[in-house]
């Protein structure tokens, strides 16, 4: 399978920080994969995703997305990626439809294509009857689903998800995961971070476990479990690799 993201010796050290948030990471993510980035707080997951989304620049190293680099092809990359941030990145006083029309139009969608796509995705995620209600009246799970739709309206080739199911009920979580699986079956490569290890074990086909800016292990969930002594699930692999110490970060 062809790799869609190639990361070579990528490092990031924030200004005034003592340690590297990412330290010499090399990674390849194949087209069509659901790739999970797991790690405790402060491991470097959000830093890596932020760099891949073009929000921050690396200190050293390089990466390409679909053989394009931000240095030369930022606009092209932004057209083929979708981003679902951890916070509800929506306008609370606008309706779901208004939010989606706006963000869809920023991807160059317009007219009936945009309108139909908004209706279709709202319907698929069970929100069509709430399309004209303001986001501020939505529950956490409903906001999460609209947040997801805003990142996938343009059928991205690569989709970055930063904890897309945090703080939602089981029903919303299932709806989101099921929809992501459909997207993946239609060819979207998914890069996903989460603290829900059971969810990641079920959802991802490849997982990288990060800690202290480095990749500790990488492989399919079953391979990682098999290669870790006495581990019966991904959580035990995770604890075995990252330890039991609390990771409070400021």
């Amino acid at each position, binding site marked *: 399978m062809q790799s869609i993201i190639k990361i070579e010796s990528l490092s990031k050290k924030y200004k005034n920080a003592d340690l590297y948030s990412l330290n010499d990471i090399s990674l390849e993510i194949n087209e069509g994969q659901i790739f999970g980035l797991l790690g405790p707080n402060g491991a470097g997951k959000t830093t890596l995703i932020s760099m891949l989304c073009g929000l921050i620049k690396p200190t050293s190293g390089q990466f390409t997305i679909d053989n394009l680099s931000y240095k030369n092809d930022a606009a092209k990359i932004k057209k083929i990626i979708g*981003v679902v941030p951890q*916070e509800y990145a929506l*306008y609370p*006083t606008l309706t779901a439809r208004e939010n989606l029309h706006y*963000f869809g139009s920023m991807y*160059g969608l317009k007219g009936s294509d945009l309108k139909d796509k908004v209706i279709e995705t709202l319907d698929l995620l069970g929100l069509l009857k709430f399309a004209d209600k303001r986001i501020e009246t939505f529950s956490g799970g409903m906001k999460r689903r609209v947040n997801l739709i805003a990142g996938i309206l343009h059928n991205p080739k690569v989709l970055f998800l930063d904890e897309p199911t945090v703080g939602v009920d089981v029903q919303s979580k299932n709806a989101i995961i099921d929809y992501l699986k459909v997207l993946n079956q239609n060819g979207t490569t998914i890069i996903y971070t989460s603290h829900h290890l059971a969810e990641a074990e079920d959802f991802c086909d490849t997982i990288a476990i990060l800690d202290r800016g480095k990749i500790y292990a990488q492989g399919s969930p079953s391979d990682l479990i098999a290669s870790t002594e006495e581990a019966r699930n991904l959580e035990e692999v995770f604890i075995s690799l990252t330890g039991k110490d609390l990771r409070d970060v400021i």
Partner: protein
Amino acid sequence: MLYKIWMSVVKEFLLLKRDLGGLIILFIMPLVLVITVTLIQDSSFKTISDNKIPILLVDKDKGAVSKTVFDNLEKSKLFSVVTQIDNQPITEAIAQEAVNKGKYQLAIVIPEKLSVDLQAKINQNVEKIVSSMGFTDSVAPAPTPKIIKQKEVKLYFDPAVQMSFKNAVMSSIDKMISQIETQSIYTTFQKQLGEESTQFEQKSFITFKEIIPKINNKEVKPNSVQHNVPAWTLFAIFFIVIPLSINIVKEKSQGTFVRLLTNPVSNLIVIIGKTITYSAICMIQFYMMVAVAIFLFPHIGLPSLNIEGHLILMSVVALFSGFAAIGFGILLGTIANTQEQSAPFGATSVIILAAIGGIWVPVFAMPTIMQIIAKSSPMNWGLEAFYDVLLRNVSFLEIIPKISLLFLFFIITTSIALFYDKKKRTV
């Protein structure tokens, strides 16, 4: 790109439409402000020109001078004279107490023997002049003149009255007393020369006349409305800094700004969207305030705003003033991290800009250093451009330098905001 700008404008309008507090700040407050301030300013003009102010007169003289003062004050448009309180004649102590307590704004105390002594002094002076000219019949040496002490007319002011009012009153009374002295001198000369049947012309020879600018051969006399509406409209336009900066801070805290950074849309398009929307808001504010000044003011006892032939140029000034305010709002919203930072800073900085820009105190009345600072305030450029159009009747060419400065301010502040944002994200 045009579609993205259009959708950004639509989004901004929807956000504003659903923000009741923001709408009140944008539309209702400026109207309340312009009506209130113009009413107050207009009534303070009237206080000096139309409405009669009651003043206390303590007459210790009981002579011709105090009678003339009384008559002149009664005849004047400024004052009505009060000589008794509770049917009791007013003493100096009563007058002083009443004024100090703010019951009256002014008391005039005419000293004892003012008429007698004034006449005696004038007689002395006239006699001296007449004898030096050889008009006297007597050959005997003139007796040594009696020393007459200078007289003081005391003025007691309410400590709360403003300096401008004090100066206006003192100037009026000074003028009145000078006229009385002059009349007395003329009369004494007539008597001395035995020409009592001849009447000297006692009116002032030199008078002054205000030449009022003409527009379309009609005199346009500036009033409080012509001064206040442009000034407070500009103030209101600059208050757009607050909702705009809050809008930008909210986008950052909601995460929508980050989402936009990952979209194939440049920050410039987002800023253009905001600029178009808020420029439209500024223009709506401007036309609302002008409409209120033209149509509502006459119904609440204020003069109507006369914008005859000026609306287009005034709209141009309003638009460019709006640009300057928007640039400032974008910069503030970009630098501020929270609404708690942007809102108070925005409000305070607009008030400071208004103060140094000459909205409250005219620039010519400021100390030299403040006059120099005022010239670098965008609100001063806007205000002067409004006055140029509305009161000085200038052409478009003559306001180009001022509106260019306003646009340059917009370009500079927006560029700093874009640069700052880029720099901030290079973590």
